[in-house]
């Protein structure tokens, strides 16, 4: 079984469009959406949820007013300024470290477990999908990503799948690190812009830091051919395989509006290029 993740550094470069297309092209696979913060893949795959689970993570302090003697030790101890002068914990600032709980002489602090989100196993027209929704303003998306990855892998083993196709998390922090662990190939999607190259470079460094093989795709390359050339020479210099270029194609948004992957849309330009990218990837990974 091979695990492929599509990442981009910054979102909005076509990561989900490409993941959706691969979901349509690959045979015998399981899909996973690791963009738990702003999951979009479900808009293309229209999943029917079969299993729904709570994601519990971390704790938030709460002070019992009846027990509190207002000694102020918790306020002084908390490094996240989460406790107000009148001994109320701000749940958004609280990091759940429990320093206050241990320091309180009156045992007035209780630590409550957070329900930080939900994760699901769903059926789609292309196969099983593991996805999740992080609660608003919750942290630990890295942990939820790791959970989605683990469940997708288990499911793939159970179904004896050949591929796990993963829509990766944006950024270079904990969620993307969790998206990259144990991956056979990370496909980095970038647009031909100065900031696109900058973001791709940062995320490639992260992937390499964790020894994950990378390949690069330039999306909408014809919006700035000069910049695309620059990206090409960047790839050459850094020994990165440029696995394909996709042209700007209005059909991509049109397919999206209809809730279809580009593969299911009667189209030529981008669709054909994406099919070629998948074939190359397939050859490379076999």
């Amino acid at each position, binding site marked *: 079984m091979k695990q492929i993740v599509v990442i981009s550094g910054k*979102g909005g470069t076509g990561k989900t469009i490409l993941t959706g297309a691969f979901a349509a092209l690959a045979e015998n696979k399981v899909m996973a959406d690791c963009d738990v913060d702003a999951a979009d893949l479900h808009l293309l795959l229209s999943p029917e949820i079969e299993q729904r689970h709570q994601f519990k993570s971390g704790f938030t302090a709460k002070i019992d007013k009846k027990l509190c003697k207002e000694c102020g030790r918790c306020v002084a101890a908390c490094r996240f300024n989460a406790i107000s002068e009148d001994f109320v914990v701000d749940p958004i600032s609280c990091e759940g470290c429990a320093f206050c709980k241990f320091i309180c002489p009156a045992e007035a602090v209780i630590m409550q477990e957070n329900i930080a989100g939900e994760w699901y196993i769903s059926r789609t027209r292309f196969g099983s999908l593991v996805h999740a929704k992080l609660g608003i*303003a919750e942290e630990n998306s890295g942990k939820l990503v790791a959970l989605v990855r683990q469940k997708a892998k288990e499911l793939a083993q159970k179904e004896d799948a050949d591929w796990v196709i993963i829509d990766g998390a944006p950024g270079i922090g904990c969620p993307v690190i969790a998206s990259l662990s144990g991956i056979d190939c990370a496909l980095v999607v970038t647009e031909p812009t100065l900031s696109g190259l900058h973001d791709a470079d940062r995320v490639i460094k992260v992937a390499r830091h964790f020894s994950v093989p990378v390949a690069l795709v330039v999306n909408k390359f014809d919006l700035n051919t000069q910049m695309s050339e620059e990206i090409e020479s960047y790839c050459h210099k850094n020994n990165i395989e440029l696995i394909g270029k996709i042209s700007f194609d209005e059909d991509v948004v049109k397919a999206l509006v209809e809730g279809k992957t580009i593969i299911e849309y009667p189209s030529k330009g981008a669709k054909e290029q994406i099919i070629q990218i998948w074939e190359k990837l397939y050859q490379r990974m076999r």
Partner: protein
Amino acid sequence: MIISVASGKGGTGKTTVSVNLALSLTNVQLLDCDVEEPNAHLFIKPEIKNTVPVYIPIPQIDKEKCDFCGRCQEVCAYNALVVIKDKVLVFPELCHGCGSCTYFCPKEAIKEVDKEIGCVEIGEKDSLQFAHGQLNIGQAMSPPLIRTVKQYANPSRTVIIDAPPGTSCPVIESIKGSDFCILVSEPTPFGLNDLKLAVEVLRKMKIPFGLVLNRADIGDEKTDAYCQKENVPILMRIPFKKEIASCYSRGENIVGALPEYKEKFEKLYKDIVRCRT
């Protein structure tokens, strides 16, 4: 006044809006809090005057004093310390720097040492003040760095905060304390889905907000319908124009290439001020 610029996901034009708004106003400061992927500097091209490393305190165990009682492991909520027979293992990437272990160690065997997580760079471009954070590669803890960037906010200026994309902790950390938040989205199913999430965040945080619709002429009508139903003011529409896309791709600014946009961004600011009062 602090105005933050956020979006449910990246790539919607958040940085474009922050940068061009900053360039259209006077007496302004731009703070790029997207410390994982800071980009605003590519467009502003500020002269960096000062680079300040940012640290979090992590525990260091004094083997002479430690008697392996295990108290530190007990108080650490993040499993960043593991005590085995005659050793204490510290996992710096799990540590939140809360200081609990140091305080509670009965043998005073723990001392806090600095671990660098990134840096803040402070600079300016003409009269525009600028600061941003850069998270070190392989580093997972962005909120402490975001907090440090925000400490550079200049209260005598209009402060524009370019927030990271999404709805999780780094975003909250960035927009907390803002007087107004501009959401940037595009009228596609992805854009609308992410916009709804962002709206939920702002309602939860009780920060007033409005929408800038980027690439306003692609996609479908559903975003407009949603905004009308949910009473989300659409403050500005930026059409999908080849000129705009191509100046973005070169790292140039809209207000530089298409001066008529300066007025539009000034109006955006005035509308925000009006929304506030």
